[in-house]
């Protein structure tokens, strides 16, 4: 099912274009200001497209469609909140943050609180969030190259790391701005064109999703590259070659309803209309409840939905690679306009992955067997269209996917490297190390891991920014206590969720830590500040003026001192 050459050419073209944009920017990147913040001279439309390019990661490009395929309606909260996060950012932090003049979150902490301890804690958190965000990008790159070209699983991550390192080290932020703005439009076009074709095909075939369990739309063979446990919702006779529940099978096998263990290397052939077995980590729901709100079959879905909404809406402002973009705006007013433009671009983009997810439920439900639903966007065009057109569309979505990995990974690299180098750690030593661990980590759904990064950002940086900008009485000890409490609680929840299976309420609470983590951090910061009123920095009032006064006021003052 792979179409090696076309997809390989597409990946190479995207990598080359990124490097080319990087080398064009090389001539223009002269100062440290150019490298880190593009000398603060990027106009709102370019900046907005660049933010969109950086923000739309593998989790958005591949992950959202996969989540919709597996979880249905409840997964729609992801794209909605990825977008709504920018609205919160616009209302709460955009202009003051730009006016603070800081480049990174630790810079902000230092400017506002004058404390090296808070700065240090922020740096550690930036690296942690950056890592949680970067791992899924590399994992997505591996998946894409593996699915589309048959390359070994480690290759994709390596390509991304290589291209990003070269592009970032030679040219820095200005060329990255240019490259990422282009990558936004590439990603959008690479999803929109296939989506329009696929909707046309769907309409032409007059297919419909019924209320029953997902069934194969055509004869398809799935080879498992690792052992999985699947749940078959109803008894079904399937053609299996390999091992089921420890016994060798070659041919038609009567599988009862319930769980079955399939060994690595097992081949399952589904005929049209066969009910699809579903990996046990995903819900095996009939389409009828898949279509309904809270029908995804997870524990405590209403709590999960609401906590997810909170995590993403409040976490967006705490993402290091997104914030760094705001400092490239000329002033606070432009920072707001840029944010609004991002809101528009994202609203446009996120209409499309949902289409892939819904069509995927009908045409590629076999992805549920191995649980690799993140491949929905990649496999759907070729499966639905076929022939040369299918290959071309497949190559197009692959190119878009690589643009997604490259832009997000390079944005993360610039911002995390900025923080690390400012903290006197040599970033080069860290990179290869991260790769190794990225490959060992358990396979997770992309958007879910990124969701944890959002939860961590929401439980730490959101309170720091909100209180720092709007509450003059925030004190360094209070802020530090809040960062430590929120960081420790959210990290623990993330680690437990990633390494073990907890069910019921404890599981739901740990998987979605934002709903309790964010309020706890706010409370700790406020109480900590109220009991240490003498530690409030003496220049807090001056910093508040700097954050909120329009730039025109500073111009007035300059005129006064001159005249």
């Amino acid at each position, binding site marked *: 099912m792979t179409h090696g050459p076309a997809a390989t050419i597409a990946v190479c073209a995207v990598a080359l274009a990124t490097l080319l944009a990087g080398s064009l920017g090389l001539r223009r990147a002269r100062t440290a200001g150019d490298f880190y913040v593009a000398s603060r001279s990027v106009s709102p439309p370019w900046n907005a497209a660049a933010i969109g390019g950086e923000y739309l990661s593998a989790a958005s490009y591949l992950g959202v469609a996969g989540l919709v395929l597996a979880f249905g*309606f409840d997964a*729609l*909260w992801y794209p*909605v*909140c990825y*977008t*709504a996060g*920018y*609205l*919160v950012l*616009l*209302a*709460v932090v955009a*202009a003051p943050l730009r006016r603070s003049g800081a480049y990174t979150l630790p810079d902000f902490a230092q400017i506002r609180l004058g404390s090296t301890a808070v700065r240090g804690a922020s740096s550690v958190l930036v690296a942690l969030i950056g890592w949680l965000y970067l791992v899924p990008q590399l994992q997505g790159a591996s998946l894409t190259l593996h699915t589309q070209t048959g390359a070994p699983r480690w290759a994709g991550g390596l390509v991304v790391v290589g291209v990003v390192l070269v592009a970032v080290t030679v040219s820095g932020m200005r060329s990255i701005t240019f490259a990422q703005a282009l990558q936004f439009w590439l990603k959008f076009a690479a999803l929109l064109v296939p989506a329009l074709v696929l909707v046309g095909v769907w309409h032409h075939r007059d297919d419909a999703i019924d209320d029953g369990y997902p069934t194969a739309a055509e004869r398809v063979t799935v080879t498992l590259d690792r052992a999985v446990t699947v749940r078959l919702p109803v008894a079904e006779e399937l053609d299996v070659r390999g091992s089921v529940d420890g016994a060798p099978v070659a041919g038609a096998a009567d599988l009862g309803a319930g769980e079955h263990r399939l060994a690595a290397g097992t081949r399952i052939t589904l005929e049209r209309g066969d009910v699809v077995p579903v990996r046990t980590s995903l819900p095996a729901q009939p389409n009828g409840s898949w*279509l*309904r*709100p*809270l029908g995804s079959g997870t524990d405590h879905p*209403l709590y999960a*939905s*609401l906590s997810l*909404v909170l995590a993403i*809406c409040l976490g967006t402002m705490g993402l290091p690679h997104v914030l760094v973009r705001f400092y490239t705006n000329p002033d606070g*007013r432009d920072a*707001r*306009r840029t*944010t*609004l433009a991002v*809101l*528009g671009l994202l*609203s446009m983009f*996120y*209409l499309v992955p*949902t289409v892939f997810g819904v069509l995927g439920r009908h045409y590629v439900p076999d992805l549920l067997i191995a649980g690799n639903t993140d491949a929905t966007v990649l496999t759907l065009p070729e499966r639905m269209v076929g022939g040369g057109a299918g290959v071309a569309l497949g190559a197009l979505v692959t190119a878009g996917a690589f643009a997604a990995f490259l832009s997000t990974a390079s944005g993360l690299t610039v911002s995390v490297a900025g923080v690390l180098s400012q903290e006197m750690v040599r970033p080069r030593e860290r990179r290869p190390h991260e790769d190794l661990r990225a490959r060992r980590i358990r396979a997770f759904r992309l958007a879910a891991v990124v969701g944890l990064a959002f939860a961590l950002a929401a439980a730490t940086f959101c309170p720091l920014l909100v209180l720092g900008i*709007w509450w003059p009485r925030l004190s360094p000890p209070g802020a530090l206590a809040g960062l430590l409490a929120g960081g420790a609680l959210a990290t623990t929840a993330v680690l437990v969720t990633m390494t073990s299976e907890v069910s019921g309420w404890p599981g739901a609470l740990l998987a979605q830590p934002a709903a309790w983590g964010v309020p706890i951090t706010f409370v700790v910061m406020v109480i900590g500040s109220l009991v240490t009123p003498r530690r409030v920095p003496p220049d807090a*009032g*001056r910093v*508040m*003026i700097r954050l*909120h*006064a*329009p730039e*025109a*006021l500073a111009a*007035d*003052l300059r005129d*006064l001192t001159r005249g």
Partner: protein
Amino acid sequence: MSQPPPRVRITHPRTEAVRRAPHRPAAREIDEQTQLGDVYMSSLIRSQRRLALVTCAAVTILLAGTALIGAYSANFVSARVFGLPLPWVVLGVGIYPLLIALGWWTMRTAERNERAFLDLVRRR
């Protein structure tokens, strides 16, 4: 013979000139963080903070409201628009224009607050 004292001209003070305080631009009051400057600044911060809270409240009502209606209203769940389930149309498409409109309003109001602040500061 002593010289007569030099003549001194005595005039009625110009009332306007006496009453007018030395000209202190508000921008300088703010810059020097006087009490008056603090009043100016806190009025701006208060209006911007109120705007931020209103927008966040609106987002909360919009999103949490959709989630709760989806959880508790059977009519909402079973309704269809153009043959598509209403909840999908709302959350997949309809909510985005609302978010953009809210963002646009927020941006305009924030800029208006800043203009009002500058007018106030420059009027003195």
